[in-house]
């Protein structure tokens, strides 16, 4: 899949693209910060029932309205960033780190090791991700450590496949043959020769993988199979406020928009970064 890089052109598109390039990373950074400080930044106690109606609309007092208990939605979303961003970040890091390691090893060692790991993980890919998530949650329950591991396991095979193919392409280049002919160790070749040439693709893959993980985690929570009450990530927030949908309460749509703002921002940020990295390679 190719990335859609909006290249610099004249006219309003250019201005849009340039501001877009500034805004998107800013949104990503904002949510990253909220994952750490959201709980303290929140204007109200996220769990505290306020002096308000249920499913109140947006107001000066409650910027994003109130939820089905009359709690402040803005505070709940800010606090929920901890779970959505935190769990996704941990799971993605785990999946990408193992994927890179295995992919590198497979490319540098090759032979039977490569074949065995590749076959096994490729077979796992043929389990659709949501299905895999449901089966794992059905078996192990939905505690946060289980969720992190589940999400990591689900996305490891795809991650491995990409990183292996990148690593194999690099390993086929002549400078790796030169290092081999010099008698360098496999570890040296993996870390000093192959890995530096994987940085761009690995970062791009990390971002894409992160989006998938956020979406899957939110879906699981939305189904009531992810983060469990009283803890609430953005998916859970949508779920618990679904009864407000017929009234058009912002409590339903706002957490979903928070998810979309994160995933879209990450997607567009990778696009602009990816473009720059692709150019590095050409140069």
């Amino acid at each position: 899949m190719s990335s859609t890089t909006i290249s610099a052109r004249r006219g309003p598109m250019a201005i849009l693209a340039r501001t877009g390039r500034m805004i998107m990373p800013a949104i990503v950074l904002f949510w990253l910060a909220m994952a750490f400080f959201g709980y303290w930044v929140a204007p109200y106690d996220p769990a505290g029932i306020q002096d308000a109606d249920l499913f109140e609309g947006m107001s000066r007092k409650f910027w994003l309205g109130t939820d089905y208990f009359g709690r402040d939605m803005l505070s709940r979303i800010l606090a929920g960033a901890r779970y959505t961003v935190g769990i996704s970040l941990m799971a993605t890091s785990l999946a990408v780190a193992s994927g890179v390691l295995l992919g590198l090893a497979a490319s540098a060692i090759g032979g039977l090791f490569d074949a065995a790991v590749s076959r096994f993980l490729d077979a796992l890919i043929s389990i659709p991700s949501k299905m895999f998530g449901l089966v794992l949650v059905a078996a192990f329950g939905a505690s946060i450590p289980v969720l992190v591991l589940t999400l990591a396991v689900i996305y490891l095979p795809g991650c491995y496949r990409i990183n292996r193919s990148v690593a194999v392409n690099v390993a086929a280049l002549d400078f790796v043959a030169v290092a081999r002919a010099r008698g360098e160790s496999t570890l040296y070749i993996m870390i000093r020769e192959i890995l530096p040439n994987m940085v761009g693709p690995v970062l791009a893959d990390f971002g894409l993988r992160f989006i998938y993980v956020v979406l899957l985690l939110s879906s699981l929570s939305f189904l009531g199979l992810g983060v469990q009450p009283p803890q609430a990530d953005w998916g859970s927030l949508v779920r618990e406020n679904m009864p407000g949908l017929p009234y058009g309460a912002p409590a339903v749509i706002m957490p979903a928009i928070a998810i979309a703002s994160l995933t879209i921002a990450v997607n567009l940020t990778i696009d602009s970064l990816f473009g720059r990295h692709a150019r590095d390679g050409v140069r």
Partner: protein
Amino acid sequence: MEPLIDIRDLRIRARTTEGHEIEIVKGVSFSVRRGEVMGLIGESGSGKTTIALATMGYARYGCRIAGGTIRIGETEVTRLDGKGLQQLRGRKVAYIAQSAAASFNPSRPIMAQVIESALIHGLMGEAAAHEKAIGLFRAMAIPQPETIGNRYPHQVSGGQLQRLMAAMALITDPDVVIFDEPTTALDVTTQIEVLKAFKEAIRDRNTTGIYVTHDLAVIAQIADSITVLRHGEVQEIATTPQLISNPAHEYSRKLLAAAEPALRPSPVTGEASVPLLRVSGMSAGYGLVGPDGMPAVPVLRDIELTLGRGRALGVIGESGCGKSTLARVVAGLTPASRGTVTLDGVDLAPGIAGRSREQLREIQLVFQMADTALNPKVPIDEIIGRPLTFFFGMKGAERDRRVRELLDLTHLPASVRDRLPGDLSGGQKQRVNFARALAAQPKLLLCDEVTSALDTVVAAAILDLMAELRRELGLTTMFISHDIKTIRAICDDIMVLYSGRVVETMPAAALETGHHHPYAGLLLGSVPALRTDWLETTPAASLQAQGVPPALSSAGCAFFPRCTRAEPGLCDTAVPPLRPLPGGIEAACFRLGAD
């Protein structure tokens, strides 16, 4: 007489990845009279293909024709709209591309593609077009002209496809034909046949053409006059005889000098030198190794060679003959499945794992593409410094000093040390490639097509560097190439590979003289010489000699199917051994000296 093609002040701009535009063709003017062929010659980036495409009103993605006029007959190409361009292309101006294999649609039979332009332009009915195509196939000496059109592109060899593409261009009897490096992708023995077919077609039809190439010897056979291009600007326009005998512009002289590489004198003379490398009974390839020591996909069979200390051995052969594998086997990258590799009297283990660090140091490999041979993320001083640390434990100031010495030795400025390979030019990268190999202080240097990816002028400078290194360091080198002119310029001995076997070895001096193995003879005779009558005075190889080398067979001479002197019952039953001939030549042929 009014010229048929008249190009004035042509400017073409391209958009870079950063989004701004740069001019890649900067005000080029030339004209071609009816019935003449204009050669456009230049190195990569000279804009020669871009100009040729512009005569059809075509600019590749990201490029546009920004100024100037292109007149063909009565038509001003730059003023045509989409419809007008469609009527021009394939009808008045036809195109023959560099790679026929890529230019034929893999999903459609050949005939449908050959007659496509005749049908699009409504020139004739389908039956008539078939008839005409078959006639053209005959004229192009394409085998099985009646039925070849029913095949798909992948079922036909590269040389035949190239001629089929010429038939495709000529089907509409266009006023102008654009030849865009049409023989560059072919092996020399195939190239000569295609060139002959083109030359005949051009003469018979009184074709007006533009012939784009980087090869002066090729264009000398076809073109009436030549335009020399560099960085999108015309350097010189002259008639062909005038350009090759008396070029006016300094750059033309450089091109001319590079096209016929001068012989670099060898530091070693005579046969007195001691053998450094010996390979005997060696076979190698890919896949599982059978009980007889032969791999599932053999690439090399029963290789014997001896390389004297300080000498340079050239290994030559066409693509797929196994010459690069030979270098990999000696370096240990592809372990031999049978036979031995001996360096300085010591048998080497087949694979890298079995060789000592000292043995690895003594053999260094320099690869063809400096782009892929240098890690793009590692700065130059680390690239050159790593072997110093690895083999000699050098660190800090000592290593730094040695890196500077090596840069100096390869004529690179010390300022490149902190740069990444991407910041260097192609020639500079190849020098870094050499510096890294020399850092190990090897006894034997293996050079795999080290000049093939470079423009001729830059390649000539690399050859000079190699000659200098041999002289100063007394290096023993194995030089692998498909280009006889390059090999002759630098090597003392030459070895010819065909289909994984050694068919001939000879001293470089014996190249022009003496009796050769039929394949070696064909190869030598196919290299275009820099004179206008070479193509006409060189006899065509028989039809049988064209075609694809067969799969490596164990019974009989590998060249048997293509050989004009083959004797059934003898040549296809036993593998001929290398036998000495006059002039220091050894050839693997039963028939040499037989008649």
